[in-house]
């Protein structure tokens, strides 16, 4: 699950840089106001310089340097999100978004979890802890987006197209997931839960669901 990790590194770094830039601009404005006040008191006219070539060049270089640094940060973060050697997924879940809920199908198993999302009937995506899982994301109708805020990751679900990504969740837990693309009337309640359980518990759960499916003839 590199997304949360990468975001946790990049976002604070960029926030600090942004805060410093913001502080510098505010300081420059405050200085201008103070200088102006003193000029007015002493009766000195406004400065007439229209260019400071050396400062302009230095400033331009500094900007280019900051931009280059941010580009490197962005590229390496993007590479971190999608490592070239993704751990081979141990299982696949086909996630299908539809108006207005979710369907989770565990590939190779007769197990499908879904719900209506209405009135709190949210489907639960159960995943094993510590194992790389491939999510195959698609849509049955309009464009939706699969978003788990805890993962710091979202991805659009398109009809007629499958987006694939791999997540590895190190520890058990339960988090809310949401649709993050305007998809129509009930977009606002198109939520689901992501529940991560220990591997043994996951196997038991999967077998129980598969057995139940066999009994009910699905």
């Amino acid at each position, binding site marked *: 699950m590199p997304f949360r990790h990468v975001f946790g590194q990049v976002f604070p770094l960029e926030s600090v840089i942004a805060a410093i830039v913001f502080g510098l601009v505010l300081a420059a404005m405050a200085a201008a106001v103070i200088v102006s006040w003193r000029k007015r008191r002493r009766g000195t006219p406004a400065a007439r310089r229209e260019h400071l070539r050396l400062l302009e060049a230095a400033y331009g270089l500094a900007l280019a340097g900051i931009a280059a640094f941010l580009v490197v940060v962005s590229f390496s973060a993007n590479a971190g999100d999608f490592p070239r050697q993704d751990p081979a997924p141990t299982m696949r879940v086909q996630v299908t978004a539809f108006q207005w809920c979710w369907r989770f199908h565990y590939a190779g198993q007769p197990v499908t979890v879904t719900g209506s999302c209405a009135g709190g009937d949210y489907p639960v995506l159960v995943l094993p802890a510590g194992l790389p899982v491939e999510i195959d994301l698609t849509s049955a109708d309009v464009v939706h987006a699969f978003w788990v805020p805890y993962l710091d990751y979202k991805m659009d679900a398109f009809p007629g197209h499958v987006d694939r990504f791999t997540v590895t969740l190190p520890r058990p837990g339960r988090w809310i997931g949401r649709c*993050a693309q305007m998809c129509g009337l009930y977009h606002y309640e198109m939520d689901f839960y992501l529940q991560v359980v220990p591997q043994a518990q996951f196997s038991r759960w999967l077998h129980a669901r598969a057995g139940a499916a066999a009994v009910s003839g699905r």
Partner: protein
Amino acid sequence: MTAEPAVTAAPGPKQTDGLVGWLQSTDHKRIGILTLGTAFVMFLFDGLLGLAMRAQLARPGQHILSAQQYNQVFTMHGTGMIGLAITPFALGLGVYLIPLQVGAPRIAAPRLTLLGYWCYVLGAVTLVWAFLTPDGAAAGWWGYTPLSSSIYSPGPGMSLWVAGVFLAACGMILQGATVLWTILRLRAPGVTMLRMPVFAWTMVVTCLMTLASFPSLLTAMGVITATRIDPGLLASNAWNMAYENLFWFYGHPVVYVMFFPFVGCVAEVLAVFSGRRFFNYKGTAFSLLAFAALSMAVWGHHLFISGQQVNDYFSLTSILLTIPAGMEYFGLLGTLAGGRLRYPAAMLFALAFIPQFLIGGLSGIMLGTPSVDYAVNNSYFVVAHFHYTLFAGSVFGFFAGVYFWWPKATGFLLNERAGRLHFVLMVIGANVTYLPMFFLGLKGMPRWVVSYPGGAGFSALSLISSIGAGVIGLAMMVFLYNIYISARQKKPATADPWGGYSLEWLTSSPPPRFNYNAQFPVPRVRSFTPTLDLRERQRERQRVTLSPRAGRPVTDTVTADTRAYRDER
């Protein structure tokens, strides 16, 4: 001083007053005022819809608006603010000011400009109609397919929305084209490209981007039309991706169309009220051009989360925008530094623009990093980001321009005390409304939701944000009140109430039908601040005649500076 012969020669057809007279006028000043006035009405209307949304979201689980109504409201709010309010503010300012600023008697192809206004009004009427139909347009201002196709939005509202967006965009293309044409072909003798005010330069890039990007919106509307006729097309992913790319090829440049003219307003206002010429003028002009060129290549950062975009390339181009944007800020801050500042309402709005837009800009650079975008895109973080750019930035720049040029356009001054109150309420309102939204987004609140559960941790911040929206509403009422009392007091404005720098301050307030005439001629223009040059030459002449050592070289520092400045040209 040479007046342009064309100005004094042709008296032109008589102007008729009244509504009909205005609606058929080919006077760019009237078309400009019509465009700005209509856009302001749309701005208030869409603002009221914003207030309705903030009322709905003030507490969790409210039912002031139904889900369908809410979706219609934010669709109209977004489409209207962008297509019918702030873009026409941008181009309307150009239509009004550009011929004056380049010393032209008229706008190029005035009938085309007027046709542009009519297209825009028809577009506005159609969009409001689309909103008011029972099954109104409710697919957001992006209008993504397949949601906007006839399967998922079967009602007439969506079809009307497509027609309205198309018409309004046509209107803006026509106005942008004639403004650019005026700049390129109708400048008075002596007004070279690098002797135009900064505002005129911002209009050059605004019009270039309008002409380059708005046709893509027209094509995108064609795609929706096709899918409303044959929704089967959307089984293929290519049509959806084509729509998204076409839409954002317009959707990102339009962000700068809604930004540059207001930077231009801020630049003019800052320079005049700092008592000095705009700093780093040439650098700013060239960085504007670079900015416009680069901004045509960043649209893909809206599609990072589509999983079907080249992340690194669009991250690179988006982050590179830092360089020209930073150069523009250098000009703004350099103008302030060493100035002797005055603080009328126009200047206050311009000053607040600088840090407030910066918040929007800096958060925008963060969004140019895919890893950050994955986390916060389509959440309230993004809502906060673009409202800081568009409202706390552009709208503040717009009001700086309104307070600055109002006396020129109407002949009377706006009330300064009400203006200051308007400003204070705007600053409080904007920041209280939009700052909490960053944190709502980081907490995981998605966009486009009519309500949220009480236990999600969004309640307190949403309430604060809604209170802020109320303050913005109050600020707008103060502005309307200001117009009302100022129109009653009618404190007459001189030709140049502020000590302005550009040509329009040399003609009467309001300007005569063809802008300049024998009484108000266009002077010889030697720099981008012709009015200031003229004032300084007059002051120098007075000094020379008043000096007891008349006839000998004057060594007074100010005069020597002035002369050195003049000789440079």
